[in-house]
């Protein structure tokens, strides 16, 4: 039984006892739930995994660099497999087996990527390796838009992010070019009306955005990232209804923005000092300030998450709180005694907030239900 059905069952019993739902209504709801089949059938999942494994098999087969096979034969094998996948996809689409057809498309994309790598190997090419990953991402994106294919779109995010990370590692630059590819993929996700695709887009952007501070200005620009995250969170909270009228995304946007803001502050507090040449303790006041800022951010995020019933943001804020406290405990503010003082002040702060929240909750009348 899915967790959703489980919850509805529990609530139904309560609503029935309260007399809000009739016996007939409850049976009708249960019957409807029972007929609803899980959207995540196991067959398409296995088909997708099979497609990926198939791609790996061909890749290893050619990568063994068979001297028995001429280059032309290896090329022909790769192209035959590539076209075989797209041919199979077509025939499966025609038979209305679209989940399996999508697996075949995914297999084709895997083979395309493998072929780029293997041709580079055959001819001992090196050039600029991230370019190869970019070609792969573009091929996947093309399939995602034309077919259209959600798995292909999901697949395009992986080499897309790898491209940015790799190019950054080699060139040590911010790599703004990533934003163009990212925007194209994000627009494709919105156009396909695919929510998980939008999440993947958000996650890719977070992966690109969080380390950006290392590549901007003086290489210590994490405060910019923290500010971007905090401002986006405030924007998502303030303009929530306006955003949700267009697309129900403000809650997710808020959660991702909190992650970015927290990551920026965390890097500033714990990672950035590692790159300072001077190993003096002069950053301790800075650490105290950053820790308080982080706590304020997380508490505000929790408050808003509870108010707006944003479960994802709430759990992310809890996670951030745990990570922050653990990191502070390991780091210590110079001496253990100072660390203890910091935790004591933070504890007092949070306790006062808890007491205030309780008082407010007790005094405010139960909310009126507006139809």
């Amino acid at each position, binding site marked *: 039984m899915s967790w959703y059905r489980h919850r509805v069952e529990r609530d139904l019993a309560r609503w029935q006892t309260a007399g809000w739902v009739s016996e007939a209504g409850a049976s009708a709801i249960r019957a409807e739930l029972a007929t609803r089949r899980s959207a995540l059938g196991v067959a398409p999942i296995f088909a997708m995994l099979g497609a990926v494994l198939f791609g790996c098999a061909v890749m290893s087969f050619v990568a063994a660099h068979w001297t028995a096979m001429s280059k032309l034969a290896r090329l022909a094998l790769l192209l035959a497999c590539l076209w075989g996948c797209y041919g199979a996809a077509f025939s499966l689409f*025609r038979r209305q087996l679209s989940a399996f057809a999508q697996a075949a498309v995914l297999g084709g994309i895997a083979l395309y990527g493998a072929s780029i790598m293997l041709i580079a190997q055959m001819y001992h090419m090196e050039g600029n390796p991230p370019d190869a990953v970019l070609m792969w991402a573009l*091929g996947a994106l093309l399939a995602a838009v034309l077919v259209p294919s959600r798995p292909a779109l999901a697949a395009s995010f992986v080499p897309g992010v790898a491209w940015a990370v790799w190019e950054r590692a080699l060139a040590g630059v911010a790599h703004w070019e990533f934003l163009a590819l990212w925007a194209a993929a994000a627009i494709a996700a919105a156009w396909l009306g695919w929510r998980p695709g939008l999440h993947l887009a958000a996650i890719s952007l977070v992966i690109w955005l969080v380390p950006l501070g290392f590549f901007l200005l003086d290489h210590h620009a994490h405060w910019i990232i923290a500010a971007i995250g905090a401002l986006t969170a405030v924007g998502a909270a303030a303009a929530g209804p306006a955003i949700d009228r267009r697309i129900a995304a403000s809650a997710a946007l808020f959660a991702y923005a909190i992650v970015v803001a927290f990551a920026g502050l965390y890097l500033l507090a714990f990672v950035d000092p590692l790159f300072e040449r001077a190993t003096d303790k002069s950053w301790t006041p800075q650490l105290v300030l950053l820790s308080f800022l982080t706590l304020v951010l997380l508490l505000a995020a929790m408050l808003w998450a509870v108010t707006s019933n944003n479960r994802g943001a709430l759990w992310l804020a809890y996670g951030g709180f745990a990570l922050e406290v653990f990191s502070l405990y390991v780091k210590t503010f110079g001496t253990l005694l100072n660390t203890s003082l910091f935790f004591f002040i933070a504890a007092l702060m949070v306790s006062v907030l808890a007491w205030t929240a309780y008082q407010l909750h007790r005094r405010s009348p139960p909310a009126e239900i507006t139809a």
Partner: protein
Amino acid sequence: MTATAARIILSLAIVGLTETAVLAYMVIDRVRLLSSGREITLPVVPVDPRDLFRREYARLSYEVGTVPVRLLEGPRPRTNAAFYVVLQKTPDGSWQAAKMTRAFPREPSPDRIVLKARTTYAWPGSGSSETAVRLRYGIESYFVPEGEGRKLEALAREKKLATLLAVDGEGNAAIKGLVVDGALQYEEPLF
């Protein structure tokens, strides 16, 4: 055929053709370079084999892969962006780096050849220093049949290994074959 089927077959065909075109371009560009490029032989200084993703390969290092910063003329190249190295033929038939430039240099002399290079090293501030930068010419990996990697490595350790390269007019270089003890051993077939 229904309109939907026609649309699907058309979109799959476009995807397949585009991807095939990219792969074909990779091969044709390489074959053009290998068959029409100017040939030079560069001695190899070895490092170590094995690439996680691509099975066995030899990691090839060259003496011209380390170039003193003072040979740079003009503005410094951006990190990981392509720039050019001019090689000068030495009396013993080997090659030596003569200068580095960001723009493509015109070197009509038969004793000189231009190679495109990249480096991930940050350029040191002063050009007068003796510091050297490590460069990549795109000819540092040589993939070999499983098990052959160590054999090649051992050969190179005894300073007997060289690569036969093809270099085109834009400074792109490709490995054409391996020269062991002055004799061409592994010659790469075009197809």
